[in-house]
């Protein structure tokens, strides 16, 4: 298949897992012989030259410094989720050049996603979207209803033409619960995947009676790094010892180093910064449990399952997206998102109450069978193939093909600011 991928960000610039997954999927689709072209935005992060299949032709209006917001906040917000004319024009160009069988959408936040989808619908171009975040909710709530109506964004049925995949039912429920958007048909839940190198090797736990906890990913409050620190502080106050917590990843590291010092727990909590995936895999094998007291709106983080593949038992927030794949006390430990609950779970790991070996073996087996990368891509290809159909390329060549988005874009701005005719 010829597959056009549209994503707001693409490595070497990345924010979190969403962009990295996109790159992994693209690599795998190409490895399977599909002809893939990626449309994305420029990266300000230095890296190797882009391969020919990556075109940085879109413009980004989010995830960037916004010092000039006060000069035109409304325009900035508009371009973020509703309409960015440059990006519609770029999409038009790529549809003409590449003539994809299907357009594969990823995160559209910051590139005027609503207008992009409208453009595809107007020209009846088949599309699918991989939801790793609440993209639809951001689009429909990004502007007042009368502005969205210009792109038919107030009509959920208008999105029925797309094949929607979501990394979790939790994410689908969250988008629905936030209002103004309901899925016209149930999305395909693809969950995550784990890349594993080699078979599962039976391992030991808590060698020498010392427990090793680990956290990996974005070092940020919403990921629960503060809760981990607070839980450790509670345990040390109670006199619990014989454990350590190693935290890998970038983010607000300096803040949390100071926080750890303030709590006087630096002796058992260490920040290591970001490390290559291979090194992280080694760390998973030598740690007993993966701490992930993330916020409840976590759609589906991959790191806990990467750890689980090596028998590192995940301790996760009970109502986050990841929890859908975990049976409590079978594949991991589910907790309330509080420092007390986390401290209690950690204490039970430390004192041996939790059967780490039983759970670690079960969760590794589950991940390696249910969350294989190959199976994940099979699901994606299934949805893309289902969307594939003939579409009239001449529609793109219509001399008025760019006039319509031009008028829509500027009319939407006029509506947004309350201009008069």
């Amino acid at each position, binding site marked *: 298949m010829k597959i056009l991928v549209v994503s707001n960000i693409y490595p070497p610039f990345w924010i979190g897992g969403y962009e990295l997954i996109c790159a992994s999927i693209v690599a795998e689709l190409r490895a399977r012989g599909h002809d893939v072209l990626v449309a994305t935005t420029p990266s300000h992060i230095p890296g190797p030259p882009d391969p020919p299949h990556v075109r940085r032709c879109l413009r980004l209006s989010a995830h960037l410094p916004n010092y000039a917001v006060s000069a035109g906040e409304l325009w900035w917000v508009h371009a973020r989720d509703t309409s960015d004319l440059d990006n519609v024009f770029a999409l038009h160009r790529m549809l003409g050049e590449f003539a994809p069988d299907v357009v594969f959408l990823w995160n559209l936040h910051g590139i005027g996603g609503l207008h992009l989808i409208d453009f595809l619908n107007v020209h009846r171009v088949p599309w699918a979207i991989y939801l790793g975040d609440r993209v639809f909710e951001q689009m429909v709530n990004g502007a007042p*209803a009368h502005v969205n*109506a210009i792109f038919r964004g107030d009509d959920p049925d208008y999105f029925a033409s797309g094949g929607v995949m979501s990394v979790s039912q939790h994410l689908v429920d969250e988008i629905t619960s936030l209002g103004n958007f309901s899925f016209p048909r149930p999305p395909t839940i693809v969950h995550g995947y784990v890349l594993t190198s080699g078979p599962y090797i039976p391992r030991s736990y808590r060698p020498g009676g010392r427990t090793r906890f680990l956290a990996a990913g974005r070092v940020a409050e919403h990921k629960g790094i503060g809760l981990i620190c607070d839980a450790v502080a509670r345990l040390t106050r109670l006199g619990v010892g014989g454990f350590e917590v190693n935290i890998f990843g970038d983010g607000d590291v300096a803040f949390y180093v100071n926080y750890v010092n303030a709590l006087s727990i630096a002796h058992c909590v260490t920040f290591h910064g970001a490390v290559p995936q291979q090194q992280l895999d080694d760390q998973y094998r030598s740690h007993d449990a993966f701490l992930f007291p993330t916020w409840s709106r976590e759609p589906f983080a991959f790191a806990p399952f990467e750890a689980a593949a090596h028998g590192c038992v995940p301790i996760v927030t009970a109502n986050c997206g990841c929890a859908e794949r975990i049976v409590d006390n079978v594949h991991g430990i589910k907790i309330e998102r509080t420092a007390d609950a986390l401290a209690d779970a950690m204490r039970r790991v430390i004192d041996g109450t939790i059967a780490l070996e039983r759970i670690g073996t079960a969760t590794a087996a589950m991940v390696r069978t249910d969350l294989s990368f190959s199976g994940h891509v099979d699901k994606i290809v299934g949805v893309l193939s289902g969307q594939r159909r003939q579409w009239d390329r001449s529609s793109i060549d219509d001399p008025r093909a760019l006039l319509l988005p031009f008028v829509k874009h500027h009319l939407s701005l006029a509506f947004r600011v309350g201009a*008069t005719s």
Partner: protein
Amino acid sequence: MVAQRPFAAVSRLRVAHVSPGYFADESLIGGGERYVSYITRALREAGGSLPFSLSQAVFAIGRKDLAFSDGGVPVTVFANQNPSPDTMAGMSGRLWQVLGDFDVIHVHQALTFFGCYCAVIARSLGKTLIMTDLGGGDCGLLLEHGGLRLADGLLSISQFARSLVGPYFRGPHAAIVGPVDTATFVPPVAQGRRREVLCVGRLLPHKGIDRVIDALPAGLALRIVGRPYHRKYYSLLVRRARGKQVTFVLDADDAGLLACYQSAGLFVQASTFTDCYGHQVRKPELMGLTTLEALATGLPVAVADTASLPELADDPRFALVFRDDAELRTVLARFAAGLWPDPGASELARRNSVDRYGFPVVGRQIAEFYAAVHAERVGP
């Protein structure tokens, strides 16, 4: 002039008229809204003589949802979803659903944000898009920025109206004057017209009613029918009318208006590009509907050489054009003296109106224009 194009392949046309308002007290009372009502009736009356079937519906924007029938044509009003106070920026997302069922979308009050909104719907849905400027707005997005080219055809309501939008559009463009309701606006049963001048229209400065009052000779009566939309201007008219035989009728209903047409001896429309306050008016009269109504009742007319009005007065036996206030005074003096019009002018005016501006005639012209544009867009 209607563009002549083959439309033999067209067997059925489903036409949706979309308008930012509708003709009712709670919405808008103006020529634009009455025009929409008129052409739906004209199309219906012409239906039997067309080589294709034509069905139609009207969709408008209002304060609340509403549905009614206008002469057998369904009218659906959607509550405005735009918080803007600008009535010409009204819109409803529900138009997306309902317009999908039609072949031709005719957007009235085209040069407004409403018109712009409906145009993008029609174009997005792949419908044949006809647009008509009825005077409400000068949307730059559609004019200088080219948005008008989203349309497949333009229908202008006069050559004057055509001249204003023609430079912005390259496709099929017809100028069709009318229609007027010649079944309602009929001559009086008994001939008994008074030697009285009649002005009808919204009491707005660009209507030039002050010019008529000023030119009115002693002893000649003037009746002014219309709603006082402009308080300052109305006060000016009242002041200038002191000492003259001037009567204001501010609340005439349809029957009252018809009675005025039937009893007067001369209709005057003195609209101007520059009003009494020195303000320039770009589009004072795109069609002059009240002049057409007067003619339909057999009432001779005198109109200013302004905008579209001369197009309606091309036979001096029952219709004169005055170029300035001096000529207006002359026309009124000749009328007061019984020197013009000649006996028989009423009958000529009536016949001219029916033959050129009646519902069946204009309805057929418009329907054929729709079909021609539609056929050109969709191909054989």
